[in-house]
């Protein structure tokens, strides 16, 4: 499994040609208490960088962008009843959706964990 990160604070964990997507711990910390997540339905085609989901915190609504191009195969139904999983387990049980990647080479343009860590450090 490979985990990659975007500058918009999404992560994607890829096994074979399937990727599971969520937002990072840094992102959930910035958003504050999450109260609703609007997820893409299975079958939806996502374009890298396009809007994929919306996460609503008490403060505001924020867009989540697709880290890669591909077709949505599943979304995390647990977030409907328990959106706070995004806060408590952003990079675990609080995942958003899964996607079948159209082009694995798109991953090369994303950051690995070390690069993302440096990137976040540069923001503070």
């Amino acid at each position, binding site marked *: 499994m490979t985990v990659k990160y975007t500058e918009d604070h999404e992560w994607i964990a890829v096994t074979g040609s399937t990727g599971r997507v969520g937002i990072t711990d840094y992102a959930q910390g910035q958003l*504050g*208490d999450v*109260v*609703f997540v*609007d997820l893409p339905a299975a079958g939806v085609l996502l374009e890298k960088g396009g809007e994929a989901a*919306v996460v*609503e*915190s*008490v*403060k*505001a*609504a924020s867009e989540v962008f697709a880290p890669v191009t591909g077709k949505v195969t599943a979304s995390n139904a647990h977030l*409907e009843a328990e*959106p706070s999983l995004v806060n408590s387990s952003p990079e675990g049980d609080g995942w958003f959706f899964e996607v079948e990647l159209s082009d694995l080479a798109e991953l090369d343009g994303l950051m690995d964990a070390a690069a993302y860590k440096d990137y976040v450090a540069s923001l503070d």
Partner: protein
Amino acid sequence: MLLAPGTELKRTPLHDLHLELGGKMVPFAGYEMPVQYPAGILTEHKTTRAGAGLFDVSHMGQAWLDGPDVAALFETLVPGDIAGLKPGQIRYTLLMAEDGGILDDLMVTRPVDDTDGSRLFLVVNAACKDQDFAHIAERLAGRATLTRLDDRALLALQGPGAAAIMRGLGPAALDLTFMTAAPVEIAGVPCLLSRSGYTGEDGFEISVPAGRAVDLARALLGAGASPIGLGARDSLRLEAGLCLYGHDIDTTTDPIEASLAWTVPKRRRAAADFPGAARVLAALKDGVSRKRVGIRPLGRAPAREGVAIAAPDGGPEIGIVTSGGFGPSVEGPVAMGYVPPAYAAPGTRIDLLVRGKPLPAEVATLPFTPHRYAKP
């Protein structure tokens, strides 16, 4: 809000204390203010409804208005009953434009030691204070004198636990009932204390000399109050059904559309002697084309300010959400907005167009959470 380039954000006397408490500072109405502390908005909201929350609202505008028969003079600018205020009473009223729009909403206090009707204490919104005070000073020039109190801070202690904290630090506070005020010494600090607030809960608003504000805040925190940021202030007032100026009311809305007819008493309607009286009286007589209502989305998605309201089942757009978000005490999304009177009855089905999708909602009775004021 947009600030002109180079505009320095102002700081309140509690700025360093906010940083010490871990406040996340954001620009608001020209000030650097805490939007939340480490506890987070949900917890801060619930803490205020269950215990006592301490808010820094020093960015708001405070002023004395002095002059002979000042209440009658001030009534030329607002539709409220100011002349009827007894010493120590507070009134919520509206600063009116000539065309019947609302310039600001404000609190007017007749000081308890005002025996000759010559002084009022005003508290106005931060974003409006410069224009409000200029407007009042200009309109009453030569007859009353407005003195800005920029050397005073304003704190709010809100929640069912507020009275117990005051019992320890300034028991004279408990002599006040909802919408009354008096000078009270709290933790040794001389304050102008009002039993009022913006959360729907019992509580106090405390005007204090800037130099003593930190001492007072530390005393209140030490007695059990939790620091609360602007985020929870907004969710608390929204659940309480209270208007936010510039959002739920502004220069385009009149008091009747805004469901604030209760702020225009019979005597003022009969005399029709306030700015915008013609529009207000016409609205009372002929009705209005839109009305501010409470809205409960039936699903879990919050509907924010600016979301269009449509008639249900693919109907036309009929209105707009002016405040909306998640209500932590309601445990679901809540909103306020404007709809035509035909849709204004509680229980009426409407749709909210959130990100292009119609989401079912219902018009709801305000407030969403019952007010729990210390009424006599």
